[in-house]
């Protein structure tokens, strides 16, 4: 339990909830990041800018956040928030494909189902959240405790 960081986790969670509340109350849209990203990409391919403007603004805000908030300047300033991934590149690509394919097929991810869907008491989101949490925990279990991979 030496890595337990309840206060930053709770504070970050409150901000995530606030962001979801803001987007729905200002723009009338669900803050589901996989959906926003997929629809943003699709608009880019179809060149339908007007309806996708808020999506790209949201995605740009997401990426600007750590740069705007970073505690100092210099090389290592972002290192604490965005440390290097422990996963080898091949597995990283496989994981990215699965995350993209799965969230598009299942209509949502941790934000759309796990936060917004649960907050709306959606039964689809309850099922999706239960399934992806269990699948993720089982995947880590198999890799770390059955295959004894060190990451």
């Amino acid at each position, binding site marked *: 339990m030496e*890595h*337990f960081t309840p206060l930053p*986790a*709770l504070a*970050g*969670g409150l*901000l*995530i*909830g606030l962001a*979801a*509340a*803001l*987007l*729905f*109350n200002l*723009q*009338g849209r669900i803050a589901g990041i996989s959906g926003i990203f*997929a629809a943003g*990409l699709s608009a880019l391919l179809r060149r339908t800018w007007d309806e996708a403007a*808020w999506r790209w*603004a*949201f995605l740009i*805000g*997401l*990426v*600007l*956040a*750590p740069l705007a*908030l970073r505690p100092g300047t210099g090389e290592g300033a972002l290192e604490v*928030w*965005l440390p290097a*991934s*422990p996963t080898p*590149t091949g*597995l*990283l*690509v496989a*994981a*990215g494909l*699965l995350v*993209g*394919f*799965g*969230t*598009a097929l299942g*209509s949502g*991810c*941790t934000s759309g189902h796990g936060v917004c869907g649960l907050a709306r008491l*959606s*039964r*689809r989101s309850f*099922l*999706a959240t239960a*399934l*992806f949490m269990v*699948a*993720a*925990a089982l*995947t*880590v279990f198999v890799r770390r405790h059955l295959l004894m991979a060190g990451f």
Partner: protein
Amino acid sequence: MLAIFSGLLSGLVFGAGLVISGMSDPAKVLGFLDVAGNWDPSLALVMAGAIPVAAIGFVLARRRGSSLFGERLNWPTRSDLDLPLIVGAILFGIGWGIAGLCPGPALVRLASGREESLVFVLAMAVGMGGATLLMRLVQKKG
């Protein structure tokens, strides 16, 4: 302009929440998912913090009936538990368990300027494109 303001502000606050909470650190996420190992329960508190605040936001919006700027509220309407939802959620979970990255943190990590963050986001985009094509194909046949 209002749409861009709303999107940018929500994105900034969401991104701040992701980095402050620890969700943008894949090792931390994997520690949360490793319930049989040296379990780090911190990230359960992310959901515990986010869900009530989001719920209040949805209640306020429902009472008003439209957005603060008069936009239509886009409530999700589906309630059916179908196969794509189930298979999609499981595949997403496996991917999340491999790398400790879900879509929000994956995008936030582009700010690190690391090549690996771009590789993951591109793979994610390809996966989304694949699922979209597959669903279109199945719809045509059905």
